[in-house]
C-alpha cells in the first residue's frame, strides 16, 4: 500500500535500483496481433533457451504491449542493444540468445531492411515506420509488461495522479485539460475539458466516470492496443478525471471480443487497488474512488453514450434522445462523464507535462497526437501515432510504405462506418478533426483503411451499410428503414440490378436517415454512401448503366477467363480451384466452366505472372472454349528454349 507521493517515489526508486540497465532484456510484443502469429511460442522459446544456455537470472524475457508494427510481428526488442528483430520465430531464438545476448552481436538477417536502399536498421527508431511517428502514448508499450504494475511505476506511472491529488485543485485539473485543447478521441472530437466541466458543475453528490472501450469500428484496434499494452495509463487518467469531476465510482466498458484486454485491465485494477491507487483514501489524499469492469456483449451501437449507459444498467443498448446529456443525467440518472480509451490515456501526460507541452503537437484546433490503425492495401500494416496535422500522404507513403505489389492507390477510408473515402487528389490535406470533415470524411476513432485499384467503391459503401444494418438498434424508423433500403439498392447495384434513379433515391434516403435519426449511428450512416458518391460517382454509373465493375470486384459483374494463347497448362489453377470449375490436364489448355465457377478469384491470383493467362472480364462476353482438338499443347524442345504450338 502506497500512502503518499513520497512513498510512491520511494517505491519507484526501489524498482529502479533492482534493475540494472546494462543487463540484457528481451521484450516480445504480446499484443493480440503478434500472439496470433506465434509470439507466445517465441516467449517460451526464449525462456527455454535462456535456461539452456545457462543465463537464468541474467536475462529476463517478457511479453509486452503492442508497439504497433503488426505487419512484421512477432516483434522482439533486445536491450541494451535496442536491437529490433522482426518476424521472429522460435527457430530464431537460439541464435538471438547466442549472438546478441551472449556475444553482443546483432543478428543482421532479422533486422528491418529498407526495400530501396537495402540498408539495415538496428533500433526501432531507425525504422522508417517508427521514425516518422510521435509516439507519446504507444511508445511505452514495448517497455511495459502490462501484467506488471512495477514496469509502469518504473516509467513514472501514477506520478500524474499524485500531482493532481496533492498539488492541484479539481478545478485546476479541469482547467489544465481544457487549456491543453484535448478533444475526444472516440469519434466526436468534443473538447474534453468542456465535457469535464459540465459534469463537474452538474448538481449532485453521486457522479460517475466511464472508459468507453467498446471499440467497434471494423478496422480499428488502437484502443485494444492501449488496453492490452498499458492499462495502467488509462486507469491513471480515469482516476484523475474522477477527482476532477467529483466521482467516486467508475466503469471500464470493454467489448468481450477483446479477451486479452479484459484480462489485462482486470489485473491492472487489482494491482492498482493493492497499491493504493484505487479504493479509500487514495495515496493518503482523502479521495475515494473505485472502478468496475463491464463486458460489452456485442453491439456496435453501445459506443454511443446513451446506449452504453443503458447497457451498463443491464438493458438493451438503445440510444435515447439528448438532451438531457449524460453530463447532467447519465448512469442511473446521475451526472456521468464518458471518454474514450485514448482520451483517458492522454490525461496523465497532460497533467505531468502540462498543457503547453501537449499544445506543441498538432494544428490550431486539433492538439496532440492521434493513433491510427493503418490497414488494408498497405505494406506496413499497424498502429501509427502521429501529431495531428500530418498529411495523409505522409502516413500512407512515409510510414506505411505505400501500396503492395504493382497496384495503384485508389482511396483511404477514415472514421469507420460513419466516415468517408478520400481519393488521391486530397491526400495532401493535414489530418485533423476539421480538415477530414471538409474532405467528406471524419477522424472517427482512427481507422484508416487503404484501398487500391482492386477495391470497388460501390462495394465499400455496400459493405459499411451492410455493417450498419446489422448494428442499427432498430428503435427509430429513419435509421432502421433507411439503412435497410440503402443496403437493398446498393446490393442491387453491385449485383447488376441497378437502375436509373437509384443514385437519386440513395441521396434522398441519405437525407432522411442522416437528418432525422435519433442517434449518431443513424445520422452518420449515409456518410460512406455520400462520400463515395461524391468522389467516385462514375463507378456507380458504370455499375448501373453498363453493368460493369471497374475494379473487377463485384462477383456478379465479373467473369474469369483463361486466355488460350497464354495458358501453359501448368495445372496450378486447376489444382487450386475451390469449385472444380477448371477443366484441364497436362498439355491441355485449361478452360473455366462458367456455370461451375464461384468467382473466388483463386485462379487469377495463382496463375504465374510470367503467363498471366487468367483474365477478369466485366461487361464483356466470355469467349467460348476452344474446340477440344485445339486444346492440346505440343512442346518442341529447341536448344534451351521451349516453343509451344497448338495443333
Amino acid at each position, binding site marked *: 500500500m502506497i500512502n503518499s507521493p513520497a512513498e510512491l517515489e520511494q517505491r519507484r526508486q526501489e524498482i529502479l535500483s533492482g534493475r540494472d540497465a546494462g543487463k540484457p532484456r528481451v521484450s516480445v510484443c504480446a499484443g*493480440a*496481433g503478434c*500472439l*496470433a*502469429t506465434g509470439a507466445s511460442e517465441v516467449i517460451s522459446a526464449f525462456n527455454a533457451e535462456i535456461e539452456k544456455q545457462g543465463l537464468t537470472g541474467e536475462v529476463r524475457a517478457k511479453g509486452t504491449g503492442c508497439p504497433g508494427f*503488426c*505487419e512484421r*510481428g512477432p516483434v522482439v526488442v533486445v536491450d541494451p542493444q535496442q536491437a529490433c528483430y522482426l518476424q521472429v520465430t522460435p527457430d530464431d531464438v537460439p541464435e538471438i540468445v547466442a549472438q546478441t545476448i551472449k556475444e553482443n552481436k546483432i543478428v543482421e538477417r532479422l533486422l528491418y531492411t529498407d526495400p530501396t536502399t537495402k540498408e539495415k536498421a538496428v533500433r526501432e527508431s531507425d525504422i522508417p515506420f517508427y521514425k516518422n511517428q510521435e509516439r507519446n502514448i504507444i511508445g511505452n508499450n514495448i517497455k511495459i509488461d502490462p501484467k506488471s504494475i512495477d514496469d509502469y511505476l518504473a516509467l513514472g506511472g501514477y506520478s500524474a495522479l499524485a500531482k493532481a491529488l496533492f498539488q492541484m485543485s479539481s478545478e485546476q485539473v479541469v482547467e489544465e485539460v481544457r487549456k491543453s485543447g484535448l478533444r475526444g478521441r472516440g469519434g466526436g472530437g468534443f473538447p474534453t475539458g468542456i465535457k469535464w466541466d459540465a459534469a463537474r458543475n452538474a448538481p449532485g453528490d453521486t457522479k460517475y466516470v466511464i472508459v468507453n472501450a467498446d*471499440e*467497434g*469500428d*471494423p*478496422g*480499428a*484496434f488502437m484502443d*485494444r492496443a492501449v488496453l492490452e499494452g498499458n492499462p495502467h495509463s488509462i486507469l491513471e487518467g480515469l482516476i484523475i478525471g474522477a477527482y476532477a469531476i467529483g466521482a467516486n465510482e467508475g466503469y471500464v466498458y470493454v467489448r*468481450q*471480443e*477483446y479477451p486479452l484486454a479484459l484480462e489485462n485491465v482486470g489485473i491492472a485494477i487489482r494491482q492498482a487497488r493493492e497499491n493504493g491507487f484505487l479504493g479509500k483514501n487514495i495515496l493518503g489524499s482523502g479521495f475515494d474512488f473505485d472502478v468496475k469492469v*463491464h*463486458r460489452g*456483449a*456485442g*453491439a*456496435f451501437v453501445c459506443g454511443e453514450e446513451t446506449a452504453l449507459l443503458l*447497457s*451498463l*444498467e*443491464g*438493458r*438493451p*443498448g438503445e440510444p435515447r434522445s439528448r438532451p438531457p446529456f449524460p453530463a447532467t443525467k447519465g448512469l442511473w440518472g446521475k451526472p456521468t462523464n464518458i471518454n474514450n480509451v485514448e482520451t483517458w490515456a492522454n490525461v496523465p501526460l497532460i497533467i505531468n507535462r502540462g498543457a503547453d507541452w501537449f499544445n506543441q503537437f498538432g494544428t490550431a484546433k486539433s492538439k496532440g497526437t492521434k493513433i491510427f*490503425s493503418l*490497414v*488494408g*492495401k498497405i505494406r506496413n*500494416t*499497424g498502429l501509427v501515432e502521429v501529431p495531428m496535422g500530418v498529411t495523409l500522404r505522409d502516413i500512407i507513403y512515409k510510414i506505411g510504405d505505400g501500396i503492395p505489389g504493382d497496384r495503384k492507390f485508389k482511396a483511404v*477510408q477514415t472514421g*469507420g462506418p460513419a466516415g468517408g473515402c478520400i481519393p488521391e487528389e486530397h491526400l495532401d490535406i493535414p489530418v485533423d478533426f476539421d480538415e477530414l470533415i471538409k474532405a467528406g470524411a471524419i477522424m472517427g476513432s482512427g*481507422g484508416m*483503411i487503404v*484501398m487500391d485499384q482492386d*477495391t470497388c467503391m460501390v462495394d*465499400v459503401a455496400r*459493405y*459499411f451499410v451492410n*455493417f450498419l444494418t446489422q*448494428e442499427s*438498434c432498430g428503435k427509430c424508423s429513419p435509421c432502421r428503414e433507411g439503412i435497410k433500403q440503402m443496403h437493398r439498392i446498393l446490393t442491387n447495384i453491385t449485383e447488376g440490378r441497378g437502375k436509373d434513379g437509384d443514385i437519386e433515391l440513395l441521396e434522398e434516403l441519405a437525407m432522411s436517415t442522416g437528418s432525422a435519426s435519433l442517434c449518431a449511428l443513424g445520422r452518420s450512416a449515409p456518410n460512406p454512401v455520400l462520400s463515395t458518391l461524391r468522389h467516385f460517382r462514375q463507378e456507380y454509373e458504370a455499375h448501373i448503366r453498363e453493368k460493369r465493375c471497374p475494379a473487377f470486384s463485384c462477383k456478379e459483374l465479373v467473369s474469369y477467363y483463361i486466355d488460350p494463347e497464354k495458358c501453359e497448362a501448368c495445372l496450378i489453377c486447376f489444382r*487450386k*480451384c*475451390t*469449385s472444380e470449375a477448371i477443366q484441364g490436364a497436362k498439355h491441355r489448355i485449361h478452360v473455366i466452366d462458367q456455370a461451375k465457377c*464461384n468467382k*473466388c*478469384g*483463386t485462379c487469377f*491470383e495463382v496463375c504465374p505472372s510470367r503467363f498471366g493467362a487468367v483474365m477478369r472480364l466485366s461487361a464483356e462476353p466470355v469467349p467460348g472454349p476452344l474446340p477440344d482438338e485445339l486444346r492440346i499443347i505440343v512442346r518442341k524442345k529447341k536448344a534451351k528454349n521451349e516453343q509451344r504450338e497448338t495443333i
Partner: protein
Amino acid sequence: MDTARIESIIDSHDGEASSLIQILLDIQNELHWLPAEALQLVSERLQVPMSRIQHTATFYKAFSLVPKGRHEINICMGTACHVRGAPRVLEVVQNITGIQPGETDPDMKFSLDTVNCLGCCALGPVMEIDEQHLGKLVPDTAAEVLKKYE
C-alpha cells in the same frame, strides 16, 4: 441443465438486475448458448421480466439461443479483412460447411459466424476456429484448414 451452476453464476453477481448482461455472458461462456430454462431462472432470480430478457438475449450478438457445434468458426468481416478478400473466404467456408453465418450444421460439427473486427487487421483475412487465429487466408487455404476438423 446444471441449475446449481446457473444459480452460482447469478450469485456471483449478487443477483443484481443491472448485472443481467454480465450474467448472460457468463452463462453463454459456460454453456455456449442460453437455454430457455436458464433464461427462466435468471428472470425469476433477478426479478427481470421475461420480455426484457428476450430482448436483451436477442439484441446482443454474443448470445446464442441455439446450441453451438463442436467447432466455432468466426470469420472476421472487418474492413481490412473485407478489402483483402474476406467475402471470398466466407463463401468458400459456407460452401464447405453448408451453413450460413449464425447457423450450426445438423451434425453439430461447425457453427459459423461473422465478427466485425478481431483487431488483427495486419493478418487479414482472418478466421478464428475454436479461438485459434488463422491469418492471411485465401479461399483454398481456408478450405484446406477445415478438412482437419472432426
